[in-house]
């Protein structure tokens, strides 16, 4: 079955609350109505109610079951501002109120305050705006301080190690992660994979070297990241540094790294930098015929993700379903 369809079935009826900060964009209005129609989530559109109602009328969309909230006029602003400055003595509630009444920050504060479960936005702004709001207002998941992104790769056929659906990270955000950041990306992606792939993931930290076959600072970085990832999340299987063939082919693994806990069956790939990650996902997509779903952001205390500016209504609904599945992920 189509992966997105499967995710929709998982989240259907769970009553997850999703906030769309760009409530007066027609695509988000249509997506909100679709979520209600398909019973995927309970949506909140942020924006001026009269503007949103007008756009919905023009689009012929009924807003039954959709909550519309104007952050500028909301009685939640003071509470969110107090929550924002909690534990800090360097910012006044008045300044914080200015910050949290902006739609992206308000949406992320809804996550923090427990008024929403998922945040999907960024159809009209650069990714940096979504990352800023989610980092500052929603915060990070335990042990994580680096937001990152992943692609879910859905291949037409299984690789030599059996994986057909895989997670790639980071292919979109972190240009040149250090060992610590790379370890965080690995841990986050392993957690995400557990929920999205529905199995215990095998996470390979990739390099041009396998278990010391080459000696170079770049390979050292991946070795260090693997060690840190194991310390951070001892319940997951990580191995590195591994070349791609050592990670995906049991035959090659038996020869090059017979003691690898992954044994050529990796289904989560952590690339050493953005060059490698971005190039790899496009190679898989174009030469391998894989469907690339993403990039989806990860690492926040609750699922929050970006949309591309060209996102369609279906893209928004799909992102909502994926985040809904991520909301159930264990650590």
């Amino acid at each position, binding site marked *: 079955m189509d992966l997105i369809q499967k995710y929709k079935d998982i989240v259907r009826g769970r009553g997850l609350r999703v906030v769309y900060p760009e409530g007066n964009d027609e695509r988000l209005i249509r997506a909100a109505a679709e979520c209600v129609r398909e019973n995927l989530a309970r949506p909140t559109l942020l924006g001026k109610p009269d503007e949103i109602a007008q756009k919905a009328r023009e689009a012929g969309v009924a807003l039954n079951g959709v909550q519309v909230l104007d952050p500028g006029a909301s009685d939640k602003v003071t509470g969110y501002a107090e929550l924002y400055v909690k534990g800090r003595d360097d910012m006044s509630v008045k300044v914080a109120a*200015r910050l949290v009444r902006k739609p992206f920050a308000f949406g992320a504060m809804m996550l923090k305050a427990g008024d929403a479960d998922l945040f999907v936005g960024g159809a009209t*702004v650069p990714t940096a*705006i979504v990352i*800023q709001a989610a*980092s500052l207002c929603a915060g990070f998941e335990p042990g994580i301080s680096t937001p990152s992104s992943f692609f879910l790769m859905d291949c037409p056929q299984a690789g030599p190690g059996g994986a057909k659906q895989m997670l790639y990270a980071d292919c979109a955000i972190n240009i040149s992660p250090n060992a610590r950041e790379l370890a965080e990306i690995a841990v986050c992606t392993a957690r995400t994979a557990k929920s999205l792939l529905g199995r215990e993931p095998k996470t390979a930290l990739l390099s041009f070297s396998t278990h010391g076959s080459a000696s170079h600072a770049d390979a050292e970085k991946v070795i260090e990241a693997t060690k840190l990832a194991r310390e951070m999340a001892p319940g997951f299987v990580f191995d590195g540094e591994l070349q791609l063939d050592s990670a995906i082919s049991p035959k090659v693994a038996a020869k090059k790294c017979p003691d690898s806990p992954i044994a050529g069956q990796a289904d989560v790939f952590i690339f050493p930098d953005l060059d490698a990650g971005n190039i790899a996902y496009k190679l898989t997509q174009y030469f391998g015929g894989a469907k690339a779903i993403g990039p989806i952001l990860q690492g926040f205390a609750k699922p929050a993700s970006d949309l591309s500016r060209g996102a369609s209504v279906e893209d928004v609904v799909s992102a909502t379903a994926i985040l809904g599945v991520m909301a159930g992920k264990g650590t």
Partner: protein
Amino acid sequence: MSDRIKEGVIKVVCETLKVDEADVTLESRFVDDLGADSLKSLELVAGFEEEFDIEMEEEAALSVKTVGDAVTFISKVVKEQHG
């Protein structure tokens, strides 16, 4: 460029980024010279809004790179919103 806006901008910059007034000039770059990470820019915008009682558009505010840019940008917004 009014002195009142320049003073207000420098005050908010010092408070938000915890830098010394003596280290702030109109040429100071927020990220490279004053150590503002991208997250701090949201708090800077909120600080400017409160100081001058204005509303700034997030995406436009992100394009401001130096203290001088901020003074110019805010002067324009103050004029638009307060006449």
